[in-house]
């Protein structure tokens, strides 16, 4: 009976480590975007070259695809092993929400909203993040930990609509708050799984 208990204990430890690995991988994506956003604020005060914004964000998006791709490959296997249904072409669960987010956040809102350009930009950015991440959550991850990443930006839209100045920066910080909370929650879950 002791051997059975020991084997069960080993299996539980293996399971915990796999759960922890999944949580850490999921946190990396959000940590990457936190770094990208913070770095932009830091270097925009130091470097002021023409076209810097476009070059910076194009590079950041390209980097984001690479990070997300590498994280996604690992996460999919862990999701499949844990018994979650991801289907035969799981990448659509990322393409659909992010395309919807781009269309609504960067096209529909700026065209239809009657507000100052800075407010339009802030609402568009927050909508883009909230819709895309909510879609990703609903279609793929369903992790409690990633709820702040879309809920805080979604709630921030209400505040942004009442603001007159500094809306873009405030929206950026609202997104960063949501992402930070998600990273912390994922890391907390990883440590809890390891210590279980």
């Amino acid at each position, binding site marked *: 009976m002791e051997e059975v208990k020991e084997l069960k204990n080993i*299996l539980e430890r*293996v*399971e915990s480590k796999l759960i922890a690995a999944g949580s850490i991988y999921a946190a990396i994506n959000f940590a990457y975007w936190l770094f990208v956003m913070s770095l932009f604020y830091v270097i925009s005060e130091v470097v002021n070259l023409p076209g810097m914004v476009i070059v910076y964000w194009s590079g950041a998006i390209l980097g984001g695809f690479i990070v997300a791709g590498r994280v996604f490959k690992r996460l999919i296997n862990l999701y*499949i092993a844990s018994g979650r249904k991801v289907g035969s072409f799981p990448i659509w669960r990322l393409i659909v929400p992010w395309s919807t987010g781009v269309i609504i956040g960067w096209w529909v809102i700026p065209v239809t909203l009657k507000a100052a350009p800075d407010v339009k930009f802030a609402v568009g950015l927050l909508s883009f993040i909230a819709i895309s991440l909510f879609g990703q959550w609903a279609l793929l991850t369903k992790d409690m930990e990633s709820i702040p990443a879309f809920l805080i930006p979604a709630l921030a839209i209400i505040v942004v609509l009442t603001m007159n100045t500094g809306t873009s920066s405030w929206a950026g910080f609202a997104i960063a708050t949501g992402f930070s909370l998600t990273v912390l929650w994922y890391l907390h879950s990883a440590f809890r799984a390891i210590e279980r």
Partner: protein
Amino acid sequence: MDALRELAKNSVLGNPIRLGIMLYLLPREKALFRDILEVLEITPGNLDSHLKALEKAGYVKIYKVFADRPRTAVKITERGAEETGKYLRMLKSILSDAL
């Protein structure tokens, strides 16, 4: 009893070395042959035969990469991830029933 029967059916993962390989690969994008060798502390011939059995079952994919020199790399397939997860759950349920 059903779980025990299902478990007995899976001759591929019934081997502890093969199960160890799958668990090592599960959270990784890929692993080099030499890394698996180091972790499991087995001979290259032994690892090669287990990897071939896993590849035949469709659980892993073996391919060549260039890392300082041409190396053999292994990655888990979706089928491999699914079967490993299923196997672990079955094993856990049997052990829970036994206690």
